[in-house]
Protein backbone atom coordinates (compact mmCIF):
# COMPACT_ATOMS: atom_id res chain seq x y z
CA UNK A 1 0.00 0.00 0.00
CA UNK A 2 2.63 2.52 1.07
CA UNK A 3 4.85 1.47 -1.79
CA UNK A 4 2.19 2.40 -4.33
CA UNK A 5 1.81 5.83 -2.72
CA UNK A 6 5.56 6.36 -2.83
CA UNK A 7 5.68 5.23 -6.43
CA UNK A 8 2.87 7.63 -7.33
CA UNK A 9 5.12 10.46 -6.21
CA UNK A 10 7.97 9.41 -8.44
CA UNK A 11 7.95 11.01 -11.91
CA UNK A 12 9.88 8.22 -13.70
CA UNK A 13 7.53 5.56 -12.27
CA UNK A 14 4.42 7.49 -13.27
CA UNK A 15 5.83 8.18 -16.72
CA UNK A 16 6.50 4.48 -17.20
CA UNK A 17 3.06 3.64 -15.80
CA UNK A 18 1.38 5.99 -18.29
CA UNK A 19 3.45 4.53 -21.10
CA UNK A 20 2.35 1.05 -20.15
CA UNK A 21 -1.35 1.81 -19.56
CA UNK A 22 -2.08 4.12 -22.51
CA UNK A 23 -1.69 1.44 -25.23
CA UNK A 24 -4.36 -0.61 -23.41
CA UNK A 25 -6.61 2.23 -22.36
CA UNK A 26 -6.75 3.91 -25.76
CA UNK A 27 -8.36 1.01 -27.67
CA UNK A 28 -10.56 0.13 -24.67
CA UNK A 29 -11.89 3.69 -24.51
CA UNK A 30 -12.43 3.80 -28.25
CA UNK A 31 -14.34 0.50 -28.20
CA UNK A 32 -16.42 1.57 -25.18
CA UNK A 33 -17.30 4.88 -26.82
CA UNK A 34 -18.21 3.26 -30.14
CA UNK A 35 -20.25 0.44 -28.57
CA UNK A 36 -21.95 2.82 -26.13
CA UNK A 37 -22.87 5.37 -28.79
CA UNK A 38 -24.05 2.73 -31.26
CA UNK A 39 -26.18 1.10 -28.56
CA UNK A 40 -27.58 4.40 -27.40
CA UNK A 41 -28.04 6.05 -30.78
CA UNK A 42 -29.20 3.09 -32.86
CA UNK A 43 -30.58 0.31 -30.67
CA UNK A 44 -32.09 1.94 -27.58
CA UNK A 45 -35.88 2.44 -27.95
CA UNK A 46 -37.30 5.79 -29.03
CA UNK A 47 -38.74 7.94 -26.27
CA UNK A 48 -42.53 8.16 -26.56
CA UNK A 49 -42.54 11.84 -25.72
CA UNK A 50 -39.30 13.32 -27.00
CA UNK A 51 -38.80 11.04 -29.99
CA UNK A 52 -35.23 10.58 -31.10
CA UNK A 53 -33.99 13.92 -29.78
CA UNK A 54 -33.58 12.42 -26.31
CA UNK A 55 -30.65 10.35 -27.63
CA UNK A 56 -28.29 13.23 -26.99
CA UNK A 57 -28.57 12.13 -23.35
CA UNK A 58 -25.87 9.55 -24.18
CA UNK A 59 -23.35 12.35 -24.63
CA UNK A 60 -24.87 14.99 -22.38
CA UNK A 61 -25.26 13.11 -19.10
CA UNK A 62 -21.88 11.31 -19.14
CA UNK A 63 -20.11 14.60 -19.87
CA UNK A 64 -21.95 16.31 -17.00
CA UNK A 65 -21.24 13.48 -14.55
CA UNK A 66 -17.55 13.32 -15.39
CA UNK A 67 -17.11 17.10 -15.36
CA UNK A 68 -18.32 17.29 -11.76
CA UNK A 69 -16.18 14.31 -10.72
CA UNK A 70 -13.26 15.96 -12.52
CA UNK A 71 -13.47 18.98 -10.25
CA UNK A 72 -13.19 16.78 -7.19
CA UNK A 73 -10.29 14.87 -8.72
CA UNK A 74 -8.55 18.18 -9.41
CA UNK A 75 -9.25 19.48 -5.90
CA UNK A 76 -7.99 16.23 -4.36
CA UNK A 77 -4.76 16.50 -6.35
CA UNK A 78 -4.56 20.09 -5.10
CA UNK A 79 -4.96 18.97 -1.50
CA UNK A 80 -2.21 16.36 -1.91
CA UNK A 81 0.11 18.91 -3.47
CA UNK A 82 -0.62 21.46 -0.75
CA UNK A 83 -0.12 19.08 2.18
CA UNK A 84 2.74 16.89 0.99
CA UNK A 85 4.25 19.20 -1.62
CA UNK A 86 4.36 16.41 -4.19
CA UNK A 87 5.24 17.82 -7.55
CA UNK A 88 3.32 15.14 -9.41
CA UNK A 89 0.09 16.18 -7.71
CA UNK A 90 0.70 19.69 -9.07
CA UNK A 91 1.07 18.29 -12.55
CA UNK A 92 -2.01 16.09 -12.18
CA UNK A 93 -4.06 19.08 -11.04
CA UNK A 94 -2.78 21.16 -13.93
CA UNK A 95 -3.58 18.31 -16.33
CA UNK A 96 -7.11 17.79 -14.98
CA UNK A 97 -8.33 21.41 -15.19
CA UNK A 98 -8.58 21.90 -18.97
CA UNK A 99 -10.06 18.42 -19.47
CA UNK A 100 -12.73 19.09 -16.87
CA UNK A 101 -13.50 22.47 -18.42
CA UNK A 102 -13.83 20.81 -21.83
CA UNK A 103 -16.25 18.18 -20.49
CA UNK A 104 -18.30 20.93 -18.84
CA UNK A 105 -18.40 22.83 -22.13
CA UNK A 106 -19.54 19.67 -23.93
CA UNK A 107 -22.31 19.17 -21.36
CA UNK A 108 -23.44 22.80 -21.76
CA UNK A 109 -23.37 22.75 -25.57
CA UNK A 110 -25.18 19.41 -25.88
CA UNK A 111 -27.64 20.71 -23.29
CA UNK A 112 -28.35 23.74 -25.46
CA UNK A 113 -28.80 21.53 -28.55
CA UNK A 114 -31.13 19.27 -26.60
CA UNK A 115 -33.00 22.24 -25.13
CA UNK A 116 -34.01 23.67 -28.50
CA UNK A 117 -36.39 20.86 -29.56
CA UNK A 118 -37.57 19.93 -26.04
CA UNK A 119 -37.91 23.27 -24.28
CA UNK A 120 -38.12 25.48 -27.35
CA UNK A 121 -35.13 27.59 -26.39
CA UNK A 122 -31.38 27.25 -26.63
CA UNK A 123 -30.91 28.51 -23.12
CA UNK A 124 -33.24 28.11 -20.15
CA UNK A 125 -32.45 29.32 -16.64
CA UNK A 126 -32.94 25.89 -15.22
CA UNK A 127 -31.24 25.09 -11.92
CA UNK A 128 -29.01 22.38 -13.33
CA UNK A 129 -28.06 24.38 -16.41
CA UNK A 130 -27.06 27.30 -14.20
CA UNK A 131 -25.06 25.06 -11.87
CA UNK A 132 -23.13 23.64 -14.82
CA UNK A 133 -22.38 27.13 -16.07
CA UNK A 134 -21.03 28.06 -12.63
CA UNK A 135 -18.91 24.89 -12.60
CA UNK A 136 -17.50 25.94 -15.95
CA UNK A 137 -16.48 29.30 -14.50
CA UNK A 138 -14.89 27.61 -11.48
CA UNK A 139 -12.74 25.59 -13.88
CA UNK A 140 -11.91 28.66 -15.95
CA UNK A 141 -10.93 30.51 -12.77
CA UNK A 142 -8.42 27.81 -11.83
CA UNK A 143 -6.94 27.80 -15.35
CA UNK A 144 -6.75 31.61 -15.46
CA UNK A 145 -5.10 31.78 -12.04
CA UNK A 146 -2.54 29.22 -13.17
CA UNK A 147 -1.78 31.24 -16.29
CA UNK A 148 -1.37 34.45 -14.28
CA UNK A 149 1.69 33.31 -12.34
CA UNK A 150 5.11 33.06 -13.92
CA UNK A 151 6.46 30.71 -11.27
CA UNK A 152 4.54 27.49 -11.89
CA UNK A 153 5.23 25.97 -8.45
CA UNK A 154 3.64 29.01 -6.81
CA UNK A 155 0.83 28.91 -9.39
CA UNK A 156 0.05 25.31 -8.50
CA UNK A 157 -0.21 26.15 -4.79
CA UNK A 158 -2.51 29.10 -5.53
CA UNK A 159 -4.70 26.89 -7.73
CA UNK A 160 -4.79 24.20 -5.05
CA UNK A 161 -6.14 26.71 -2.50
CA UNK A 162 -8.68 28.03 -5.00
CA UNK A 163 -9.92 24.59 -5.96
CA UNK A 164 -10.29 23.65 -2.29
CA UNK A 165 -12.31 26.81 -1.61
CA UNK A 166 -14.39 25.85 -4.66
CA UNK A 167 -14.91 22.34 -3.29
CA UNK A 168 -16.33 23.71 -0.03
CA UNK A 169 -18.60 26.00 -2.04
CA UNK A 170 -19.89 23.63 -4.74
CA UNK A 171 -22.54 21.94 -2.55
CA UNK A 172 -23.65 25.35 -1.22
CA UNK A 173 -23.85 26.77 -4.75
CA UNK A 174 -25.84 23.79 -5.99
CA UNK A 175 -28.27 23.91 -3.07
CA UNK A 176 -28.76 27.65 -3.40
CA UNK A 177 -29.37 27.43 -7.14
CA UNK A 178 -32.04 24.79 -6.52
CA UNK A 179 -33.56 27.11 -3.96
CA UNK A 180 -33.48 30.05 -6.36
CA UNK A 181 -35.10 27.98 -9.08
CA UNK A 182 -37.97 26.97 -6.82
CA UNK A 183 -38.67 30.66 -6.24
CA UNK A 184 -38.49 31.96 -9.78
CA UNK A 185 -40.04 29.17 -11.81
CA UNK A 186 -42.61 26.70 -10.61
CA UNK A 187 -41.68 23.35 -12.13
CA UNK A 188 -42.90 24.04 -15.65
CA UNK A 189 -40.26 21.79 -17.13
CA UNK A 190 -40.20 18.30 -15.81
CA UNK A 191 -37.01 16.34 -16.11
CA UNK A 192 -37.36 12.62 -16.59
CA UNK A 193 -35.84 11.56 -13.29
CA UNK A 194 -32.93 9.15 -13.65
CA UNK A 195 -34.77 6.56 -11.56
CA UNK A 196 -37.76 6.69 -13.91
CA UNK A 197 -35.65 5.74 -16.91
CA UNK A 198 -36.24 2.31 -18.45
CA UNK A 199 -33.54 -0.35 -18.29
CA UNK A 200 -33.26 -0.53 -22.10
CA UNK A 201 -32.28 3.15 -22.05
CA UNK A 202 -30.36 3.03 -18.78
CA UNK A 203 -27.76 0.37 -19.67
CA UNK A 204 -26.34 2.18 -22.70
CA UNK A 205 -26.29 5.34 -20.57
CA UNK A 206 -24.29 3.61 -17.83
CA UNK A 207 -22.00 2.22 -20.52
CA UNK A 208 -21.39 5.69 -21.86
CA UNK A 209 -20.69 7.03 -18.37
CA UNK A 210 -18.02 4.35 -17.91
CA UNK A 211 -16.65 5.16 -21.37
CA UNK A 212 -16.46 8.86 -20.51
CA UNK A 213 -14.62 8.11 -17.26
CA UNK A 214 -12.16 6.05 -19.28
CA UNK A 215 -11.82 8.94 -21.72
CA UNK A 216 -11.15 11.29 -18.84
CA UNK A 217 -8.47 8.96 -17.46
CA UNK A 218 -6.91 8.58 -20.89
CA UNK A 219 -6.79 12.32 -21.54
CA UNK A 220 -5.45 12.92 -18.03
CA UNK A 221 -2.61 10.47 -18.62
CA UNK A 222 -1.75 11.91 -22.02
CA UNK A 223 -1.80 15.41 -20.57
CA UNK A 224 0.27 14.31 -17.56
CA UNK A 225 2.83 12.66 -19.81
CA UNK A 226 3.09 15.84 -21.82
CA UNK A 227 3.63 17.95 -18.67
CA UNK A 228 6.21 15.46 -17.39
CA UNK A 229 8.07 15.69 -20.70
CA UNK A 230 8.25 19.47 -20.61
CA UNK A 231 8.94 19.63 -16.85
CA UNK A 232 11.76 17.04 -16.82
CA UNK A 233 13.16 17.65 -20.29
CA UNK A 234 16.65 18.01 -18.78
CA UNK A 235 16.46 14.94 -16.53
CA UNK A 236 18.55 11.89 -17.23
CA UNK A 237 15.79 9.36 -16.72
CA UNK A 238 13.57 11.00 -19.32
CA UNK A 239 16.34 11.40 -21.90
CA UNK A 240 17.32 7.77 -21.39
CA UNK A 241 13.71 6.61 -21.66
CA UNK A 242 13.01 8.51 -24.87
CA UNK A 243 16.27 7.71 -26.66
CA UNK A 244 16.19 3.95 -25.95
Amino acid at each position, binding site marked *: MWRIIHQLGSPPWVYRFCDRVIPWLLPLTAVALIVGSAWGLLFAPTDYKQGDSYRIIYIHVPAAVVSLAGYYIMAFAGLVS*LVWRIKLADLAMRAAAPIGAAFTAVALITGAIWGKPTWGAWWVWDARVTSML*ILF*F*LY*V*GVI*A*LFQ*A*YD*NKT*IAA*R*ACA*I*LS*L*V*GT*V*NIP*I*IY*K*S*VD*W*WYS*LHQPASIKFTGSSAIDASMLYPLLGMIVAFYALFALLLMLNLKQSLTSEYSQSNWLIKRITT
Partner: protein
Amino acid sequence: MADQSGIDILQYLRGQTARHVRLQFASPSEIVNPLLFFLLVVILFPLGLGPDPERLALLAPGILWVVALLANLMICMRLFVDDFEDGSLEQLAMASTPLALSVIPQLLAAWMTGGLVLSLAAPLFGMMLGLPVSAAPVLVASLLMGTAIMLLLGAVGAALTVGVRRGGILLALLILPLYIPVLIAGTRALDEALHSGDPAVALAFLGAGVTGGLLLAPLAIAAGLRVSLEL
Protein backbone atom coordinates in the same frame (compact mmCIF):
# COMPACT_ATOMS: atom_id res chain seq x y z
CA MET B 1 -5.68 34.89 26.90
CA ALA B 2 -2.09 35.52 26.03
CA ASP B 3 -0.06 33.99 23.25
CA GLN B 4 3.60 33.04 23.46
CA SER B 5 4.91 36.57 23.16
CA GLY B 6 2.70 37.62 26.06
CA ILE B 7 0.42 39.92 24.07
CA ASP B 8 -3.23 40.02 24.99
CA ILE B 9 -4.98 38.80 21.84
CA LEU B 10 -8.09 40.91 22.25
CA GLN B 11 -6.01 43.99 22.87
CA TYR B 12 -3.93 43.16 19.81
CA LEU B 13 -7.03 42.76 17.63
CA ARG B 14 -8.51 46.00 18.94
CA GLY B 15 -5.30 47.94 18.37
CA GLN B 16 -4.79 46.57 14.88
CA THR B 17 -8.39 47.22 13.90
CA ALA B 18 -8.10 50.81 15.08
CA ARG B 19 -4.88 51.19 13.09
CA HIS B 20 -6.50 49.91 9.90
CA VAL B 21 -9.57 52.10 10.37
CA ARG B 22 -7.29 55.13 10.82
CA LEU B 23 -5.44 54.14 7.66
CA GLN B 24 -8.73 53.98 5.78
CA PHE B 25 -9.73 57.41 7.03
CA ALA B 26 -6.36 58.78 5.96
CA SER B 27 -7.52 58.34 2.35
CA PRO B 28 -11.27 59.04 2.48
CA SER B 29 -11.65 58.54 -1.26
CA GLU B 30 -11.33 54.78 -0.70
CA ILE B 31 -14.42 54.91 1.49
CA VAL B 32 -16.37 57.33 -0.71
CA ASN B 33 -15.52 55.81 -4.10
CA PRO B 34 -17.45 52.53 -3.65
CA LEU B 35 -20.44 54.57 -2.46
CA LEU B 36 -20.27 56.84 -5.50
CA PHE B 37 -19.95 53.79 -7.69
CA PHE B 38 -23.03 52.29 -6.02
CA LEU B 39 -25.01 55.50 -6.60
CA LEU B 40 -23.89 55.90 -10.21
CA VAL B 41 -24.74 52.35 -11.20
CA VAL B 42 -28.13 52.59 -9.46
CA ILE B 43 -28.80 55.72 -11.54
CA LEU B 44 -27.92 53.82 -14.72
CA PHE B 45 -30.79 51.35 -14.26
CA PRO B 46 -33.73 53.79 -14.47
CA LEU B 47 -32.00 55.39 -17.44
CA GLY B 48 -31.64 52.05 -19.15
CA LEU B 49 -34.95 50.49 -18.15
CA GLY B 50 -37.22 53.54 -18.25
CA PRO B 51 -38.61 55.46 -15.27
CA ASP B 52 -41.77 53.36 -14.75
CA PRO B 53 -41.92 53.24 -10.90
CA GLU B 54 -43.74 49.93 -10.72
CA ARG B 55 -41.25 48.09 -12.84
CA LEU B 56 -38.33 49.64 -10.99
CA ALA B 57 -39.81 48.61 -7.65
CA LEU B 58 -40.17 45.07 -8.99
CA LEU B 59 -36.53 44.95 -10.07
CA ALA B 60 -35.13 46.92 -7.10
CA PRO B 61 -34.05 43.93 -4.92
CA GLY B 62 -32.01 42.43 -7.74
CA ILE B 63 -30.54 45.76 -8.83
CA LEU B 64 -29.53 46.78 -5.31
CA TRP B 65 -27.95 43.44 -4.55
CA VAL B 66 -26.04 43.15 -7.82
CA VAL B 67 -24.71 46.69 -7.47
CA ALA B 68 -23.73 46.10 -3.84
CA LEU B 69 -21.93 42.97 -4.99
CA LEU B 70 -19.98 44.90 -7.61
CA ALA B 71 -19.13 47.71 -5.17
CA ASN B 72 -17.88 45.05 -2.79
CA LEU B 73 -15.72 43.62 -5.56
CA MET B 74 -14.13 47.06 -5.90
CA ILE B 75 -13.35 47.10 -2.19
CA CYS B 76 -11.80 43.62 -2.41
CA MET B 77 -9.52 44.65 -5.26
CA ARG B 78 -7.79 47.20 -3.02
CA LEU B 79 -7.72 44.97 0.03
CA PHE B 80 -4.12 43.80 0.42
CA VAL B 81 -2.45 45.86 -2.30
CA ASP B 82 -0.93 48.64 -0.15
CA ASP B 83 0.29 46.31 2.59
CA PHE B 84 1.75 44.01 -0.04
CA GLU B 85 3.62 46.79 -1.79
CA ASP B 86 5.11 48.48 1.28
CA GLY B 87 6.20 45.15 2.77
CA SER B 88 4.12 45.26 5.95
CA LEU B 89 2.28 42.14 4.85
CA GLU B 90 5.56 40.25 4.81
CA GLN B 91 6.34 41.45 8.34
CA LEU B 92 2.88 40.36 9.43
CA ALA B 93 3.39 36.93 7.90
CA MET B 94 6.67 36.45 9.73
CA ALA B 95 5.42 37.67 13.13
CA SER B 96 4.68 35.19 15.90
CA THR B 97 0.93 35.83 15.71
CA PRO B 98 -0.68 33.39 13.26
CA LEU B 99 -1.38 35.10 9.95
CA ALA B 100 -4.94 33.75 9.95
CA LEU B 101 -5.52 35.76 13.13
CA SER B 102 -3.71 38.91 12.15
CA VAL B 103 -5.65 39.36 8.89
CA ILE B 104 -8.91 39.60 10.86
CA PRO B 105 -8.37 43.22 12.03
CA GLN B 106 -7.78 44.31 8.47
CA LEU B 107 -10.93 42.53 7.28
CA LEU B 108 -12.90 44.02 10.17
CA ALA B 109 -11.67 47.51 9.33
CA ALA B 110 -12.39 47.01 5.63
CA TRP B 111 -15.91 45.87 6.45
CA MET B 112 -16.58 48.78 8.82
CA THR B 113 -15.51 51.35 6.24
CA GLY B 114 -16.95 49.41 3.27
CA GLY B 115 -19.77 46.94 3.75
CA LEU B 116 -21.20 48.65 6.82
CA VAL B 117 -21.37 52.04 5.11
CA LEU B 118 -22.84 50.51 1.95
CA SER B 119 -25.51 48.64 3.92
CA LEU B 120 -26.54 51.74 5.85
CA ALA B 121 -26.68 53.83 2.68
CA ALA B 122 -28.60 51.20 0.71
CA PRO B 123 -32.14 52.16 1.89
CA LEU B 124 -31.55 55.61 0.40
CA PHE B 125 -30.72 54.08 -2.97
CA GLY B 126 -33.65 51.70 -2.50
CA MET B 127 -35.99 54.66 -2.13
CA MET B 128 -34.71 56.06 -5.41
CA LEU B 129 -35.79 52.81 -7.07
CA GLY B 130 -39.18 52.85 -5.38
CA LEU B 131 -38.46 50.13 -2.85
CA PRO B 132 -41.05 50.40 -0.02
CA VAL B 133 -39.69 51.80 3.24
CA SER B 134 -41.07 48.74 5.05
CA ALA B 135 -38.45 46.60 3.30
CA ALA B 136 -35.57 48.77 4.53
CA PRO B 137 -34.79 46.78 7.71
CA VAL B 138 -34.52 43.52 5.76
CA LEU B 139 -32.42 45.26 3.09
CA VAL B 140 -29.99 46.57 5.70
CA ALA B 141 -29.86 43.27 7.62
CA SER B 142 -29.30 41.17 4.49
CA LEU B 143 -26.61 43.54 3.21
CA LEU B 144 -24.84 43.73 6.59
CA MET B 145 -24.35 39.96 6.58
CA GLY B 146 -24.01 39.64 2.80
CA THR B 147 -21.22 42.21 2.53
CA ALA B 148 -19.38 40.43 5.37
CA ILE B 149 -19.53 37.07 3.54
CA MET B 150 -18.58 38.67 0.24
CA LEU B 151 -15.65 40.44 1.87
CA LEU B 152 -14.40 37.18 3.40
CA LEU B 153 -14.69 35.30 0.09
CA GLY B 154 -13.29 38.23 -1.85
CA ALA B 155 -10.34 38.40 0.52
CA VAL B 156 -9.44 34.81 -0.38
CA GLY B 157 -9.35 35.81 -4.04
CA ALA B 158 -7.52 39.05 -3.24
CA ALA B 159 -4.91 37.12 -1.24
CA LEU B 160 -4.31 34.81 -4.20
CA THR B 161 -4.08 37.59 -6.80
CA VAL B 162 -2.31 40.37 -4.89
CA GLY B 163 1.06 39.44 -6.38
CA VAL B 164 -0.27 39.14 -9.92
CA ARG B 165 -0.03 42.00 -12.39
CA ARG B 166 -3.47 43.28 -13.43
CA GLY B 167 -5.12 40.97 -10.92
CA GLY B 168 -8.42 42.89 -10.91
CA ILE B 169 -10.24 41.08 -13.71
CA LEU B 170 -8.77 37.81 -12.57
CA LEU B 171 -10.15 38.46 -9.08
CA ALA B 172 -13.62 39.01 -10.53
CA LEU B 173 -13.40 35.75 -12.48
CA LEU B 174 -12.28 33.82 -9.39
CA ILE B 175 -14.81 35.03 -6.86
CA LEU B 176 -17.99 36.00 -8.72
CA PRO B 177 -19.06 32.33 -9.05
CA LEU B 178 -18.60 31.99 -5.29
CA TYR B 179 -20.86 35.00 -4.65
CA ILE B 180 -23.90 33.33 -6.21
CA PRO B 181 -25.33 31.76 -3.04
CA VAL B 182 -25.04 35.12 -1.23
CA LEU B 183 -26.83 36.90 -4.05
CA ILE B 184 -29.61 34.32 -4.11
CA ALA B 185 -30.14 34.42 -0.34
CA GLY B 186 -29.99 38.21 -0.21
CA THR B 187 -32.50 38.85 -2.98
CA ARG B 188 -34.68 36.07 -1.62
CA ALA B 189 -34.83 37.74 1.80
CA LEU B 190 -35.90 41.00 0.14
CA ASP B 191 -38.46 39.31 -2.10
CA GLU B 192 -40.00 37.58 0.91
CA ALA B 193 -40.16 40.86 2.79
CA LEU B 194 -41.79 42.59 -0.18
CA HIS B 195 -44.40 39.92 -0.69
CA SER B 196 -45.23 39.68 3.02
CA GLY B 197 -43.44 36.36 3.36
CA ASP B 198 -40.97 35.37 6.02
CA PRO B 199 -37.39 36.55 5.29
CA ALA B 200 -36.05 34.72 8.36
CA VAL B 201 -34.91 31.60 6.47
CA ALA B 202 -32.86 33.55 3.96
CA LEU B 203 -31.43 35.77 6.70
CA ALA B 204 -30.53 32.72 8.77
CA PHE B 205 -28.75 31.30 5.71
CA LEU B 206 -26.72 34.50 5.46
CA GLY B 207 -25.97 34.38 9.18
CA ALA B 208 -24.72 30.82 8.81
CA GLY B 209 -22.56 32.03 5.93
CA VAL B 210 -20.97 34.72 8.10
CA THR B 211 -20.21 32.25 10.90
CA GLY B 212 -18.82 29.59 8.58
CA GLY B 213 -16.90 32.18 6.61
CA LEU B 214 -15.34 33.69 9.72
CA LEU B 215 -14.23 30.24 10.74
CA LEU B 216 -12.76 29.01 7.44
CA ALA B 217 -11.94 32.04 5.30
CA PRO B 218 -9.07 33.41 7.46
CA LEU B 219 -7.26 30.08 7.04
CA ALA B 220 -7.62 30.20 3.26
CA ILE B 221 -6.69 33.91 3.22
CA ALA B 222 -3.53 33.23 5.23
CA ALA B 223 -2.58 30.33 2.96
CA GLY B 224 -3.24 32.50 -0.09
CA LEU B 225 -1.14 35.37 1.24
CA ARG B 226 1.75 33.00 1.94
CA VAL B 227 1.54 31.83 -1.68
CA SER B 228 1.56 35.42 -2.93
CA LEU B 229 4.49 36.32 -0.66
CA GLU B 230 6.28 33.16 -1.84
CA LEU B 231 6.97 32.20 1.78
